């Protein structure tokens, strides 16, 4: 199968792939799977939900599955419900993400629910990038939800990135961590223009010795608004930490709401939240190294969101 240039560019931005990658992959374009390929250890099929059922076999080592979604048709309201099962002691990476190209005035919307089960002793890295582009005024809207269950002794990391072009997004992340399981959620977000972004993350640490961490870095420019809610619920002896750090610019607004809930006296939960503009001395320092003020701002923001 041959991909069009536009598709390639979108895929490259959201999944860092130049063409159809080797190994397990499912590319969904405008509401339909246009390419699907399983690998010996990772099977991709249509599940009972009508979406994907991706099963990573127990003991699989260092394999990646790509499941990107691209939208190029205006007015489309694409909805998916995908399920991922990471087998016992497997070590794998899932690269998801959605790219929208919209040159018109109509709205393009993608709503995705990803349900992930990381079984005992497994390790998972889940990466999801969101991106919008196009010359029209049509809104690019993304409503992703991720539900993840981390079983005993399993380790998972969720990395979500939204850097450019998404007009409206509500991202929900819900997690359940069992005995000695560990989850780290890293979120990077930049909004500009009139964009709105809401991110709600809730980690329930249910098992003894479990740990959960939420790290958020965001930049709000122009008239954009961001709401970030991060909740940790410690239901057992556990460790949890929330850190949200935001740079605010222009006339943007940011609301950060870290929430800690301990239901066990041995739960240790902490949070830090900071919102502020770029420090003047940072700009001066970079300008004294020869950068213009604009270059200095870009360098600081790129580094902050890296």
């Amino acid at each position, binding site marked *: 199968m041959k991909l069009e240039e536009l598709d390639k560019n979108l895929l490259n931005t959201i999944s860092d792939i130049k063409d159809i990658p080797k190994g397990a992959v499912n590319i969904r374009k405008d509401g339909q799977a246009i390419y699907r390929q399983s690998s010996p250890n990772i099977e991709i099929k249509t599940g009972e939900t009508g979406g994907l059922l991706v099963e990573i076999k127990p003991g699989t080592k260092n394999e990646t599955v790509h499941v990107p979604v691209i939208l190029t048709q205006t007015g489309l309201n694409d909805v998916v419900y995908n399920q991922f099962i990471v087998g016992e002691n497997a070590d794998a990476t899932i690269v998801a993400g959605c790219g929208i190209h919209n040159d018109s005035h109509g709205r393009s919307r993608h709503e995705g629910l990803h349900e992930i089960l990381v079984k005992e002793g497994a390790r998972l890295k889940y990466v999801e990038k969101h991106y919008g582009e196009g010359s029209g005024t049509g809104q690019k809207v993304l409503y992703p939800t991720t539900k993840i269950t981390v079983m005993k002794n399993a380790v998972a990391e969720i990395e979500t990135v939204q850097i450019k072009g998404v007009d409206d997004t509500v991202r929900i992340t819900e997690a359940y961590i069992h005995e000695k399981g560990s989850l780290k959620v890293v979120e990077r977000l930049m909004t500009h223009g009139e964009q709105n972004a809401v991110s709600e993350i809730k980690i329930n640490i249910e098992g003894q010795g479990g740990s959960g961490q939420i790290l958020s870095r965001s930049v709000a420019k122009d008239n954009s608004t961001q709401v970030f809610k991060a909740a940790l619920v410690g239901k057992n002896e556990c460790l949890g930490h929330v850190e949200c750090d935001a740079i605010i610019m222009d006339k943007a607004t940011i609301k950060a709401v870290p929430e800690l809930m301990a239901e066990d006296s041995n739960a240790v939960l902490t949070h830090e939240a900071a919102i502020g503009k770029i420090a003047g001395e*940072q700009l001066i320092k970079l300008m004294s190294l*020869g950068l*213009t003020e604009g270059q200095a701002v870009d360098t600081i923001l790129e580094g902050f969101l890296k």
Partner: protein
Amino acid sequence: MLHLENLSFSVHNNGDSKQIISDINLDIKRGKLYGITGPNGGGKTTLAKVIMGILTHTAGHIYLDGEDISDKNITERANLGIAYAFQQPPRFKGLTVEDLVKIAQPKLSNLSVRKRMRDVGLCPEDYLDRDMGSGLSGGEMKRIEILQVLARNAKLAIFDEPEAGVDLWTIQRLVDIIVGKYQNNPEAAAVLITHNRNILPICDEIVVIEEGRIKHHGHRDEIWPIIRDDIVCQVQDTCRGEEII
């Protein structure tokens, strides 16, 4: 190379005017090391910031190689060859040590970056990828700051209290590097703002600034004997009587 002519800087607050530096006249010549010293609050850092363009002087002129650069901004002065190592360098979340060194000198090869890191006492393996956020100590930040200014190959490099927060072994090494790079260099000069009694006597010229004015200026052999006792006393004030090398 750099000529300061009747340079003054004052601040205005609620109708009051306070003169921070007054009527400074100074010539910085290539190939020489200049030690600027004097009591805290005397205007040394302000003078350095005025030369870099971080603060705008309120009277007088600054000439670089005959060109009046009074109206040039920080970036323009940096690109004309002025560099300033901050007394307290700012931190940058997400930027690595390597990122900053490469911003300071984009032409530097990876090998050169590593060599220069070793020069300032930082092991490249341990520090190249370190975040310039909160994890580094004050002394480490200072060494990285000095490294950046050295890497810029500036015509005029100003080091603001390079010894502050740096261990003794590293200070000596940094001073050796600065002396080697600037003393007798036909292209460049360095200014060191310092109280350090090991650094001042090796500078070619010493300038003492007090209450915003030049109190003494001349060859080290002339000035150092006058101020030596004061410097030792000041250092001991800071360290509460403990001997500082």
